[in-house]
């Protein structure tokens, strides 16, 4: 048993370290993405609230009818009070002349506010964190997803080997030895890991499942020569509508949605209109994933006259399990309370990864032959920890500031916000490489705390409508964003202060009491 535990401890250390930095940013982005819609609204503060969703839907439909009356398909996300408006996306009629050229999604996408006009502020909003969580940025999406999938598998391995390595899982659960150097970091890492263990296991496994079509297509290949047959089982839809060329008035979407909610037994999440304005028009409704653990809602299709022409077949147990695993990961089924719980668990996971990364250096520092001159590998890890764990949050703070300060009419505004995130993160990375890690931690954590606190002050005093209006109107989704940022600023400032005031204990005392010869670097190699 000892040999097994030892081997798994080595695996835990190295799988955790090598992918730890990627996992940290994935965890931060995923945790922020639980407030995706709240951030989508918060980053468009001038956008009015959606008071009556059906009314907003009718206005979005009218806008689409002006902008893309002859599109092949409209995709509409049903507006809710949580969202800044109606997300619409359309696919133009196939153009034989443009065959082979790829259609660019951003030209056929819009966010229509409750008043019926596209939102003024071009921003990625909370969607940035959602996409970054699995698509990263500045790299092809497929590469990013394989990297994220690989990191998730290493995370699963790190969690399982962490459990194996952990000898006294229940006793240590109640143990937190403070101010004891490595022992305290280990206790902190264990507390973050064990407290959230069910969440960490669930979120990692279900995360792999969300990418399974790409990561693990082999079962499908084993059973299907034609993969589209499997896709038809996973995503059933009515037969494709064929355009007749005879114009017909648009179906009344609000009336269809009201009817669909009754038939689907819950709110409608997505509306797909094929061949709008044609007698062959077809409207397909999908039940919102807010009502059920299964992320794949039942569907119903209507013809141009508003008659039901198709219903999705009942889901079998395996597909429901699969949909529920994705639902568990995204947490869309939850109300505000559950969302807070998800958010706190996400923070726990972030702390688990961060404390594990720091623990790697703390543990090795105590065994260094000459702590004043650590080997190169050690110094690289130590500084990369600063660059990622303290640097990425600073980049996010810059992203929020860019959202507030870039003028509304600046061209390419949304992309510039994202560019500021990476520019600030890059600058933070340079700082962490240039100065001693201890100063790096203090500068970056303190800097992020100052930026976030100043941002909340800006929202309270200068932004109109801003924090004061949200609190007065009882708009707690928006006010909470500022309050959470303020709390984060306080925690980061406290941490920076602790690091600044920290006095390492003198090592020679320990070495003397142990009366043991200095450890040779060669003996350090199998460090665990």
């Amino acid at each position, binding site marked *: 048993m000892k040999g097994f535990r030892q081997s798994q401890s*080595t*695996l835990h250390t190295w799988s955790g370290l090598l992918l730890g930095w990627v996992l940290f940013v994935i965890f931060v982005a995923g945790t922020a993405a639980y407030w995706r819609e709240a951030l989508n609204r918060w980053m468009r503060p001038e956008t009015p609230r959606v008071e009556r969703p059906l009314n907003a839907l009718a206005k979005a439909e009218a806008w689409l009818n002006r902008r893309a009356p002859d599109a092949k398909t409209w995709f509409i996300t049903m507006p809710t009070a949580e969202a800044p408006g109606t997300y619409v996306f359309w696919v133009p009629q196939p153009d034989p002349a443009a065959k082979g050229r790829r259609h660019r999604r951003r030209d056929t996408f819009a966010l229509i506010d409750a008043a019926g006009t596209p939102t003024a502020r071009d921003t990625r909003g909370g969607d940035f964190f959602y996409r970054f969580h699995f698509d990263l940025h500045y790299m092809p999406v497929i590469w990013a997803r394989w990297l994220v999938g690989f990191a998730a598998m290493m995370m699963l391995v790190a969690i399982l080997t962490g459990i194996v390595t952990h000898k006294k899982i229940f006793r240590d659960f109640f143990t937190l030895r403070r101010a004891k150097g490595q022992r305290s970091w280990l206790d902190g890492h264990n507390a973050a890991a064990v407290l959230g263990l069910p969440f960490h296991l669930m979120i990692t496994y279900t995360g*792999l*499942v969300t990418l*399974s079509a790409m990561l693990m297509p*082999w079962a499908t290949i084993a*059973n299907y020569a034609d993969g589209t047959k499997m896709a038809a089982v996973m995503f059933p839809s009515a037969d494709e509508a064929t355009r007749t060329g005879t114009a017909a008035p648009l179906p009344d979407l609000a009336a269809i949605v009201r009817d669909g909610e009754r038939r689907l037994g819950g709110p409608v999440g997505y509306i797909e209109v094929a061949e709008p304005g044609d007698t062959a028009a077809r409207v397909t409704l999908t039940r919102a994933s807010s009502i059920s653990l299964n992320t794949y809602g039942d569907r119903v299709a209507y013809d141009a006259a508003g008659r039901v022409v198709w219903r999705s077949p009942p889901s079998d147990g*395996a*597909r429901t399990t*699969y949909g529920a695993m994705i639902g568990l990961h995204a947490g869309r089924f939850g109300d505000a309370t559950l969302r807070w719980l998800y958010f706190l668990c996400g923070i726990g996971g972030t702390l688990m990864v961060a404390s594990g990364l720091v623990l790697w250096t703390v543990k090795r520092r105590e065994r260094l032959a000459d702590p004043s001159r650590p080997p190169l590998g050690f110094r690289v890890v130590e500084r990369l920890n600063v660059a990622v764990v303290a640097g990425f949050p600073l980049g996010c703070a810059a992203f929020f500031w860019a959202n507030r300060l870039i003028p509304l009419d600046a061209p390419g505004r949304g992309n510039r916000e994202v560019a500021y995130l990476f520019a600030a993160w890059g600058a933070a990375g340079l700082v962490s490489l240039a100065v001693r890690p201890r100063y790096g931690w203090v500068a970056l954590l303190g800097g992020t705390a100052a930026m976030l606190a100043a941002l909340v002050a800006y929202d309270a005093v200068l932004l109109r409508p801003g924090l004061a209006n949200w609190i007065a109107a009882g708009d707690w989704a928006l006010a909470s964003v500022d309050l959470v940022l303020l709390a984060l600023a306080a925690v980061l400032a406290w941490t920076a202060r602790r690091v600044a005031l920290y006095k390492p204990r003198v090592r020679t005392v320990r070495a003397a009491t142990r009366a043991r010869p200095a450890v040779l670097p060669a003996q350090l190699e199998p460090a665990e």
Partner: protein
Amino acid sequence: MSGIAGEVDRRTAARWRRRTDSGLRLLAAVPLGYAVASLWAMALARLLPMPAAPATITATLIAFAVCAAAVMWAYAARSGWRAVWTLALAGGIAAGITWASIAAGGRL
């Protein structure tokens, strides 16, 4: 003098043995671990006693656990060689099952 030289040789040899062992375990964990999970996903998709679609989904869901177990085994095995050949054997069995099943029953 030859005693010291012998000692250095012995140390170099031991270091190379360690490196080979690490390399083999990495080979067993990453490419082989994924291959074993993929092949067992195929074999389970063919073997599970349910219709094709649910069998496919169930096999896919199980495959990630197989992958994690294979990675853990790559480091738990007594030696790197043992990790490689046991995982190759596990993958080979799944490949055989899949091949025989498709040859006999075809695909959809």
